[in-house]
């Protein structure tokens, strides 16, 4: 059969000519029109700025201001002298308050709090939701707990600051005092001991519901036969959770964990920036905040860019590392 058809094909149909790359492209001009503008856009807005990293190796600081030309800034900053790795050295020896190393410590601390407690809370909530049989109730809980995810950080931090953590009229102080937990008002916002935990708390409040989605969808993927079998074997609710549900979401958990570790330096700066007070400035500064404050406020471009590069490079290492580990563990590749 095959030979016949091949012969037939050879004999009867004209041989298909393999088109060249540009000929194909020409035929696909409509697709090109649809995709290339975005390609150019991405090249310009996401890749071209990489050229700006050169600023990290130049001596651009408030004390040595360079006139930045508006047209082709990265070429014109060539006027500034190269200074090698001075900016990077400065990062770790600077006398700024908060210092860069302090910022890294803060970032890691807040990330870890977020990672550990956020993940735990999300898994717990997902399990509880998964055990609810009543559809309406489940949907109500989901609707309510997803809500804060869609409120902007300004709104969330504003509510937290004024209504809850305010040392005079804040609900938290009132509640704790009426319960007799604390004797006098605590200045939650002004005390540096609480800052990381406050950030963690607010983050968890905002994101815990949203974080459950991925776990719940993993749980719906678990074969119901497993539950049935377990309950026939006499497993109770808790045992079914421990022996069926938890193993069922293991791979999701691992993937998310690895991914989050890859993004551990990306705590951002929104909440820290909005929540910080003069008293907590030092523990509030994250790497991003450091970059922002030195770059856009102090005009210390060299230092800020160096800090940004430092973060990016570490992030790339972390991400590829995470990807590698995930592959080694037999989970899906992330990229």
């Amino acid at each position: 059969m095959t030979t016949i058809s091949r012969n037939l094909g050879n004999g009867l149909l004209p041989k298909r000519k393999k088109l060249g790359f540009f000929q194909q492209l020409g035929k696909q001009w409509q697709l090109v029109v649809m995709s290339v503008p975005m390609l150019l856009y991405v090249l310009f807005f996401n890749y071209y700025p990489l050229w700006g990293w050169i600023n990290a190796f130049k001596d651009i600081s408030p004390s040595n201001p360079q006139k930045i030309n508006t047209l082709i800034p990265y070429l014109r900053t060539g006027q500034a002298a190269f200074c090698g790795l001075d900016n990077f050295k400065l990062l770790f020896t600077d006398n700024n308050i908060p210092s860069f190393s302090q910022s890294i410590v803060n970032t890691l601390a807040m990330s870890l709090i977020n990672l550990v407690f956020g993940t735990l809370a999300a898994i717990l909530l997902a399990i509880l939701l998964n055990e609810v049989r009543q559809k309406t109730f489940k949907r109500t809980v989901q609707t309510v707990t997803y809500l804060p995810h869609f409120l902007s950080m300004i709104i969330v931090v504003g509510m937290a600051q004024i209504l809850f953590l305010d040392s005079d009229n804040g609900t938290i102080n009132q509640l704790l005092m009426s319960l007799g937990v604390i004797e006098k008002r605590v200045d939650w916002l002004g005390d540096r001991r609480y800052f990381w935990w406050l950030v963690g708390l607010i983050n968890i409040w905002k994101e815990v519901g949203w974080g459950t989605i991925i776990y719940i969808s993993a749980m719906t993927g678990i074969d119901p036969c497993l539950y049935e079998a377990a309950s026939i074997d006499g497993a109770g609710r808790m045992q079914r959770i421990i022996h069926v549900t938890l193993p069922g979401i293991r791979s999701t958990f691992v993937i998310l964990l690895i991914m989050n570790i890859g993004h551990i330096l990306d705590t951002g700066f929104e909440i820290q920036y909005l929540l910080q007070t003069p008293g907590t400035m030092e523990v509030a500064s994250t790497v991003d905040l450091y970059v922002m404050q030195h770059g856009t406020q102090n005009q210390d471009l060299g230092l800020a860019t160096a800090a940004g590069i430092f973060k990016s490079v570490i992030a790339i290492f972390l991400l590829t590392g995470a990807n590698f580990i995930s592959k080694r563990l037999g989970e899906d590749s992330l990229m």
Partner: protein
Amino acid sequence: MSIEIESKGTRAMEQDKRGLKDIPETLRKGTRMNKKQLRWSIVFMIILAVGLMALMIFAQGKASEPLRAADQIALLRDADGAERIEIVNNSTSIQLSEHEAKIDEATQRRLVLIQKSGANDDYWFFVCAENELPVYQESFKKKAKDPLPAIIALESEGDQILYVTRAQDADIERSIANLDKQGIKVTYLALNKLASSVETPDAESAAALLNDDDGDETAEDGEDASLGLVDLSDTSNPKIVMMKTMLSRLSFLQFQPKQGGDIMLTRGTDLEKQVAKAAMQRMNVIRWLIVLALIAVAGVLAFMLKSKKILTKEAAQQRKMRLITLAVAAVLLGVLIFVSILTNNATEQYEHVSPYSFNGMDETEDAAEAVQAEAGEETVTFHYNYRNGVSVVKDENGKAIRGEDGKTIQQDNITKMFVTLSENTGRNGIFRVIEYAAMALLVIMVFALLYYFRYERDLGFTMFNVAILCVLMIITIYPVLNTVAYSFNEGTDAARGGIGIWPRKFSTKSYADVLKDSEILRAAEVSVKKTIITTVLNLFWTGMLAFTLTRKEYVLGKYITVIMVLTMYVNAGLIPNYLLISQTLGLRNTFWVYIIPTMFSCFNMIVIRTYIASLPNELVESARIDGAGDFRIYWQIIFPLCAPVLATVALFVAVGAWNSWFDTMLYNTEKSRVTGLRLDTLQYYLKGKLAGAARSASQANNTADASTELAKSTTSEITMRSAVTVVTALPILAVYPFLQRYFVTGMALGSVKG
């Protein structure tokens, strides 16, 4: 032996049966209510709820009476003719006649002077009765540990009056500047170590100190701070007479150990406060009794829902269930009660409502006026600008006292003149009823849940689960409701705090103000424009790109995909992007800075691409055979089919655009270069409002900048801020419940590849 084995076997079989059917045999048979029982239990629940409501209202009314009753200013004249003005609280069952008896007691009060000598002479002195002295001493010892108040010394014609305030430095400085204009010399002493040691009373030294015109001469070492007793009835010393008037005021100026912020002025003496506190504790006891009663009732109800047979095989299990039910009901109700305590005005009155809060300026103005009066001017004017907004004005003889609300308050003879100071500070009756109704409804809901889940096999777990989820919902939704409640409250009233999920004094004034504010309207317009344009452009380009990347025959597809996906991992960082947008493109202070940099998101592209890839390929193939080009295929076939995912992505993009504020802060803090109008978005506007408030609330910042911030954020602004918050969140709050499933779908789609 064999019998035992057999019995085990049957039990196992029973369990299996139960496991499969999920409803215990006994529960199915024994516990199901018939209709009559059900009806009666519902009636019972309603009666219970109404009763609970009535009981709580009653309890609150009773217990908080001493706190809410009208406070009065009494102008008291001593036997020697010296006048004193005192705030009394007749609700502490001091009737008028009794009060006259108290006047005698009051004259026996001593002037207590605490002096902390140092470089500056710092005093604190007040009037108290002898038996009150230990209380004060105790409180001083405590206060010595706290950050201590500042003392302001007002000097007028050589007389010095000291004021203790806890106002923030900026406030004080402002007040002093204000007083300077009025020609009153003010010495401002920052007092950090007041009463660091309280020694035994030393009447002589204190009296000597008081008789000295110049306090410097008695300056001693810090260790020798002394607590002195001076006889108040010594009217030969004009200074004492003057101070008596002032100090009698100070006697009811109790400064709360607060961190920064306002001066707190309470109504009563310590004794009165103790009475109030006791009343509060009584009230709490009643509350707890109610809680216990509720728990008991819940237990009874749970029992009703269960089998009437107690001595069955499942007795143990049932008892466990009952216990669990009880515990869960207790937890739920406890939470409800705490929420109600939080939202309850009466409880807060002792702490937060009854103290009149002055800010520094008002208070020192009072002092200034009092000083002027003592210096021989005819008119004494007391502005009690406390937050209920009533001021009291007294004429030269102290005869006519009227509230600033226009009512002339009837005068008595001079020795007892009582002016009603406070309105009913409790919340509006109807709102209270509604709030309790809501609470009662919640209780009913709890019981309904109990009822609903009565057939669950492991009731304990379910109850626990439901309870936790309910608590979680409360925690999540409470801040939002609280903000809404604040925004609908009346401004000066809201500043006292303690509002729960229902406004205390309803008012839409803050919304009226918001709508009048052209800045907000402008910001809203910018926000809306930004959101719409960003969403449309983003979808337009991202959708088409995603489509082209699903076409396997597209020769550039592979490369473009790699380039796009890499953007998720490679990021130039903030500064290069900032330079690109502000310097290279020069987009600063233009509207386009909101649009152009946010036109693409790889995550959204992947979401759409995944969806398109899941569509059957035959659609495209057949269309191509029919001669359709790629444009036509996309716009006429794929695009309509993609509506769900595009809606999802549109929501994500729109929410992101609406919620972003950082771009404004970075690029658009000035007026537009093109139109000359401000380009603040709503979020940024809100940030401005909140930042000022947060700074004044949490941190004493002594710069001039901070004081202007303070001046801006007056007390009533909390409602304004809440209103702006609500307006800013409104589009999301309004749309979110209906579109939630789209969000979730999108998240699930994204997680396929994300």
